[in-house]
């Protein structure tokens, strides 16, 4: 049984805006599913329907085996939710909030304190747990939000853009935590507008645009769909580019070179082909000034499917080790 099973899910607002237009997806238990799309694509609306905060206007969805429309109470017992803006009471301390969340989830009184302490420690907030949340940084708030979502050991965890606006260190900490949750077997539904985040964390990715899923699969499979990696080469002397192109055709298709690049060639073998390419050019009298191996990205997938680039695609994203 899928941890999340969505069939033809729709949401139309009273204004007539159809934010989600009949999406289908299935997330297996223990899987990290990345839901990728630009602002306004329908990611948050989808999440709000799956966590029972918003009623679907069409289709159906089950989470942890229960229907979000007809069995919302059962769904709520089994999910953890960290929404886009960390919904925290800034007047309470981190510890108080953790204990309140434990009470809301019916955790026995005798276990509340220990569970709260364990989780604030896990997200690195032990020292700050006695401080009011209003004094926390954005990253600390997100980590507290995550810890609160985990207080009842949910079967399915929903993270709605958990790292938007965070500094690289906080982002790295959250990524590590998601990896740890995956290792523990928690199903994670992660929405993001960051390509690298989806690429790094998700087992499978669904790309949503204008309320419709335009592509779905593993990051590797999706990228393979749009083509091979290629080498962008700049030469010291570009007086005989025709000759250089002829030489490189032995490795793969020579593509139109982007601005500032002399030759661009598809290489099926990726990095293993760099040395042979340089050798061939060197033997023919060309000196390579610079060379870059460019792999297809999820942004290329998005562009291929929608004709647009993802917002934020150019935003630098830290790559934690």
């Amino acid at each position, binding site marked *: 049984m899928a941890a999340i099973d969505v069939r033809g899910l729709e949401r139309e607002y009273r204004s007539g805006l159809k934010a989600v237009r009949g999406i289908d997806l299935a997330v297996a238990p223990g899987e990290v599913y990345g839901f990728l799309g630009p602002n306004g694509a329908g990611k948050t609306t989808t999440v*709000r329907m799956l*966590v*029972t*905060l*918003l*009623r679907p206007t069409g289709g159906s969805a089950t989470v942890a085996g229960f229907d979000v429309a007809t069995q919302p*109470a059962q769904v*709520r*017992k089994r*999910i953890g*939710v960290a*929404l886009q*803006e*960390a*919904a*925290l*009471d*800034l*007047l*309470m301390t981190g510890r*108080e909030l953790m204990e*309140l*969340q434990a*009470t*809301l*989830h*019916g955790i026995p*009184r005798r276990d509340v304190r220990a569970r709260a302490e364990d989780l604030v420690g896990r997200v690195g907030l032990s020292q700050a747990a006695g401080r*009011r949340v209003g004094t926390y940084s954005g990253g600390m708030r997100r980590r507290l939000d995550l810890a*609160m979502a985990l207080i009842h050991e949910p079967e399915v965890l929903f993270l709605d853009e958990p790292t938007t606006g965070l500094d690289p260190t906080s982002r790295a900490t959250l990524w590590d935590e998601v990896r740890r949750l995956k290792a523990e077997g928690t199903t994670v539904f992660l929405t993001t507008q960051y390509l690298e985040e989806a690429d790094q964390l998700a087992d499978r990715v669904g790309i949503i645009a204008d309320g419709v899923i335009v592509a779905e699969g593993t990051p590797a499979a999706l990228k393979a769909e749009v083509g091979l990696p290629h080498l962008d080469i700049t030469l010291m002397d570009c007086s005989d580019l025709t000759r250089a192109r002829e030489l490189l055709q032995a490795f793969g298709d020579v593509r139109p070179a982007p601005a500032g690049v002399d030759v661009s060639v598809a290489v099926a073998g990726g990095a293993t082909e760099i040395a042979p390419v340089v050798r061939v050019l060197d033997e023919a009298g060309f000196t390579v000034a610079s060379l870059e191996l460019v792999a297809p990205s999820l942004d290329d997938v998005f562009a291929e499917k929608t004709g647009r680039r993802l917002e934020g695609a150019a935003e630098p994203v830290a790559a934690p080790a």
Partner: protein
Amino acid sequence: MTRVVLALARRAIRANLRKPQFLAPLLIFPTLFLAVNVGGLTSTTSLQGFPEVRGFLDFQLAGALTQSLLLGGVSTGIASALEIEGGFFDRLVASPIPRVAIVLGRLVAAGLVAGVQVLFFLALGLAFGAEIAGGVPGVLVVLVIGIVAGVGFGALGQAIGLRARNASTVQGIFPLVLVILFVSSAFFPRALLSPPSDTISRFNPLSYLADGLRDPIISEVSWTPVLEGLAAATGIAVVAMGLSVLALRGRLRDA
């Protein structure tokens, strides 16, 4: 359910204590109003039709209390709206708790705050020379009526907060609170009000509430005004709690 309601009430009380903007206006504004009234209108006690009172402060305490309890309702409404604006409401809705606990938690807090308001104004009155003619039973009667009214006004504020969804709209009802209060017998005996205020005050539940709060302060506890006051407070509480639950349902349905 009880555990969740008490946890949410504790949270609301904590917010009141940690953010002076929530609690201070409920005490400071009516106190200033009381000081101005007592300072400038004391001689009205000699007007024909003014009830027998030891002093104008004794009479005015019930007005200050009613005003403070009404402001408590505004404060509860603002807190509810801020909870929606800040997203904490979503956290509560996404939790496996009975929906009505969200309403009740805040109302338990409103009742407790109302108790503090009653004790504050009675203590203030005593400190400045008023007497509680009804003695300890009188204090208990004022406390009970005040708490029930506090819950009622809290529920009304919450209903408005849940409907409005933003704090500034709730804040906008503040002048209306004063208008409704002035067309009641909270500050002057009904007999001394001019038309149409005297007519309106006869149908204004705040008149009965204020008279019920006033009676044990200015005289021995007498059943008619006390029961009328309690009935007004209970009526307000029952209707407002119904409105609050309906507003919550509407809020969840609209989601």
